[in-house]
C-alpha cells in the first residue's frame, strides 16, 4: 500500500497496513533480526560530530509540523558549552487526524528508541525523556516495556553496547493538552507548570529543560535516524526529492476507501495519495475538499491536489504539510460544520495566555455558531477574516497563529458556503451548487 518510487524496495518504516488493521509489534528480537541497532553500533564507533553531519547531509527536517532542519538543531545543542544536555522526544501527538506517532510507538518502538539513542550520542546527552500524551496509554505501555527490554539488552542505560556512552531514558505522561505538542509548552509541562508556551528566543537548543540545551524532536523524526545513519545520507536522499529528502508518514482519514497510515516518498502528489493509498472516494461519491495538516492545516478543493508533497511546493501553494494528516471530505460534507469543529477544538485547547488567541477564538466560535444557525451576516464574515488575521499575525505561539488556517483557506476556496449561511446576503449573490 505504501507508495514506492525509483525502484526502491525499502523505505524508512516499511509499514504493512492491511485492511485497516495494523500488524503485530516488532519486538526486540525481530528488530535486531531486521538489522536493528546496526546504526547505533556503527555510530558508537565514529565521532558524534559525524552523526550530526550525516543527518545534515541527509536533509532531514522535523516531521512534527515545523519542518526545521534536524541536523542544524542537533548542531546547536552539540555546540553548546553547557555539558548537561537533554534529548526529548515529542510524542504528544495531538493534531486531530494524526496517528503516525502512536503507530510507531506501538509497532516500531525500538526504531524510535534507537533513533533517540543516536540523537543523544550525536548531541552528547545522557538523559532523555519521551513525552507521551495521556490519551495513548497503549503507546506508553509499549514504550515502557521496550525501554526495559533495551536496558536489559545493554542498548540503553550505562555503557551502551560496551561503549563509554550512557543514555538514560524515561517516560513522561501528558495530561490532556494539545498545546503541549508545542516544544516550549512541553518543557513547561515537564517542569510541573501549565503547558503554556515560553518566549523564543531562547530556543530549547540554547535553554531548554531546566535551562539546559535540549534537543526536542518528534517521534517520526527520531525514528528516521536509524535508517539515515545505518544506510547513509546518499541512500536517504534517493528517497523523496532534492527539496524534501526521505519519506513522510501520512495519516489518511475521512471519506476514502482505505483509511490508514501510509509511508510515501516526498514528491508524490496529494491526488496520488488519495487515489493510490486511499483507493479513491468512498461509496463512489465525488471529492469535495481535503484538509491537509490537521486542525491547524488548510482546507483545499480538488484542483489543488496536484500539488506535490514537498515542503517548497506546498509552501508556494500555502499548503501546510504539518504532521501529515490528510482528511478527505466528499461532496455531502459541509465545510462550515468542519470549520466549526476545528474552531471548537482550538477554543478548547488554547492556553488562554495571549489575547489574540483567547479572545479571537471566543469571537470566532461565536460567529461560526451564528453562521451555522443561519444568523450570520456579511459583516460577520469580515470580522472572521480580521480576527483570524490578527491571530495569525499577533498570537504568542504556533497554536494561535495556525488556529485560523482552516478558516482562512476555506473562506478563500469555499466562500459561497459562508455567504449562503448569511441572512443578509442577497439570494442573487448566493452562488449555485454550494452544497
Amino acid at each position, binding site marked *: 500500500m505504501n507508495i514506492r518510487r525509483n525502484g526502491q524496495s525499502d523505505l524508512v518504516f516499511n509499514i504493512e497496513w492491511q485492511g485497516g488493521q495494523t500488524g503485530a509489534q516488532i519486538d526486540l528480537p525481530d528488530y535486531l533480526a531486521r538489522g536493528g541497532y546496526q546504526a547505533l553500533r556503527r555510530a558508537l564507533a565514529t565521532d558524534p560530530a559525524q552523526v550530526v553531519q550525516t543527518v545534515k547531509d541527509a536533509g532531514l527536517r522535523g516531521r512534527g509540523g515545523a519542518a526545521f532542519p534536524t541536523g542544524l538543531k542537533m548542531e546547536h545543542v552539540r555546540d553548546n558549552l553547557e555539558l548537561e544536555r537533554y534529548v526529548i522526544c515529542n510524542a504528544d501527538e495531538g493534531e486531530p487526524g494524526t496517528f503516525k506517532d502512536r503507530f510507531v510507538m506501538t509497532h516500531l518502538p525500538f526504531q524510535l528508541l534507537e533513533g533517540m539513542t543516536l540523537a543523544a550520542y550525536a548531541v552528547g546527552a545522557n538523559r532523555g525523556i519521551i513525552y507521551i500524551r495521556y490519551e495513548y496509554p497503549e503507546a506508553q505501555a509499549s514504550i515502557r516495556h521496550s525501554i526495559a527490554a533495551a536496558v536489559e539488552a545493554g542498548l540503553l542505560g550505562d555503557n551502551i553496547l560496551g561503549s563509554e556512552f550512557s543514555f538514560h531514558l524515561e517516560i513522561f505522561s*501528558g*495530561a490532556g493538552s494539545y498545546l503541549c505538542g508545542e516544544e516550549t509548552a512541553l518543557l513547561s509541562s515537564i517542569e510541573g507548570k501549565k503547558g503554556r508556551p515560553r518566549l523564543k528566543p531562547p530556543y530549547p537548543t540554547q535553554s531548554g529543560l531546566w535551562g539546559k540545551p535540549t534537543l526536542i524532536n518528534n517521534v517520526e523524526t527520531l525514528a528516521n535516524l536509524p535508517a539515515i545513519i545505518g544506510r547513509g545520507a546518499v541512500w536517504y536522499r534517493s528517497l523523496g526529492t532534492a527539496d524534501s529528502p526521505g519519506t513522510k508518514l501520512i495519516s489518511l*482519514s475521512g471519506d476514502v476507501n482505505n483509511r490508514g497510515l501510509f509511508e510515501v516518498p516526498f514528491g508524490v502528489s496529494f491526488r496520488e495519495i488519495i487515489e493510490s493509498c486511499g483507493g479513491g472516494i468512498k461509496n463512489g461519491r465525488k471529492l469535495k475538499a481535503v484538509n491537509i495538516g490537521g486542525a491547524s492545516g488548510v482546507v483545499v478543493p480538488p484542483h489543488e491536489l496536484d500539488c506535490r508533497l514537498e515542503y517548497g511546493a506546498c509552501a508556494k501553494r500555502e499548503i501546510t504539510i504539518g504532521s501529515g494528516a490528510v482528511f478527505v471530505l466528499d461532496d455531502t460534507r459541509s465545510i462550515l460544520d*468542519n470549520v466549526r469543529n476545528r474552531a471548537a477544538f482550538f477554543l478548547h485547547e488554547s492556553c488562554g495566555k495571549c489575547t489574540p488567541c483567547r479572545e479571537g477564538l471566543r469571537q470566532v466560535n461565536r460567529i461560526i455558531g451564528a453562521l451555522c444557525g443561519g444568523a450570520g451576516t456579511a459583516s460577520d464574515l469580515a470580522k472572521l477574516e480580521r480576527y483570524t488575521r490578527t491571530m495569525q499575525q499577533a498570537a504568542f505561539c504556533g497554536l494561535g497563529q495556525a488556529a485560523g488556517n482552516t478558516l482562512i483557506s476555506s473562506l478563500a476556496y469555499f466562500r459561497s458556503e459562508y455567504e449562503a449561511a448569511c441572512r443578509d446576503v442577497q439570494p442573487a449573490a448566493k452562488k449555485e451548487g454550494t452544497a
Partner: protein
Amino acid sequence: MLDKGKSVQAIISEIGTSKTALLPILLAVQDASPAHYVNEAAMNEIAARLKLSRSRVYSTASFYSEISLKPRGRNIVQVCVNAPCENAGKAAIIRALENELTITLGETSADAQFTLEGVNCLGACYLSPAIKVNGRLYGNLTAAAAVDIIRQCREGEAN
C-alpha cells in the same frame, strides 16, 4: 487505574518532590482515587510537600483536561469529538450513549457508575468513530455497538 486507594503520601514518596514530579503526582493521585479525580485535601498536601503555593498546584491541575477536579464515575466513557470522528457519525454515538446512560456529555450518572466525556483525537481516525472506555479503545462504532459496550461494562461490574 492501578494502585487504587494508595495514599497521597505514598505516591509522593515514590515519585519525589522535585517540580518535575507535580504532574506525575497529580495523575497518580487521580489514578488512585476511586472517583478518578484530585480532591482539595490531596492538592493541599501536594502543595505542602512540593513547597509550592496551593494556587500554583491548582493552576497546573486545572489546566490539563485529563485531570479532573470533580469526582467522576467508576467507568469513564470518552467520545472523540474531533472532525474525522464527527464526520463518521460521532453525534449518533453520543446520542445513543446519552440515552443509555441518561446523562449528557460531560456529566456523571447519579449512581456514580459512569462519566461521559468528550475527548480529543485518540489517534484512531482510521477506525472512526472511536471511543475509549476505561482507557480501552473501540473503533468503527455504530450506535448499537456503543450501547453494547456500556451494557457489558455494567454486567462486568455486576459480576
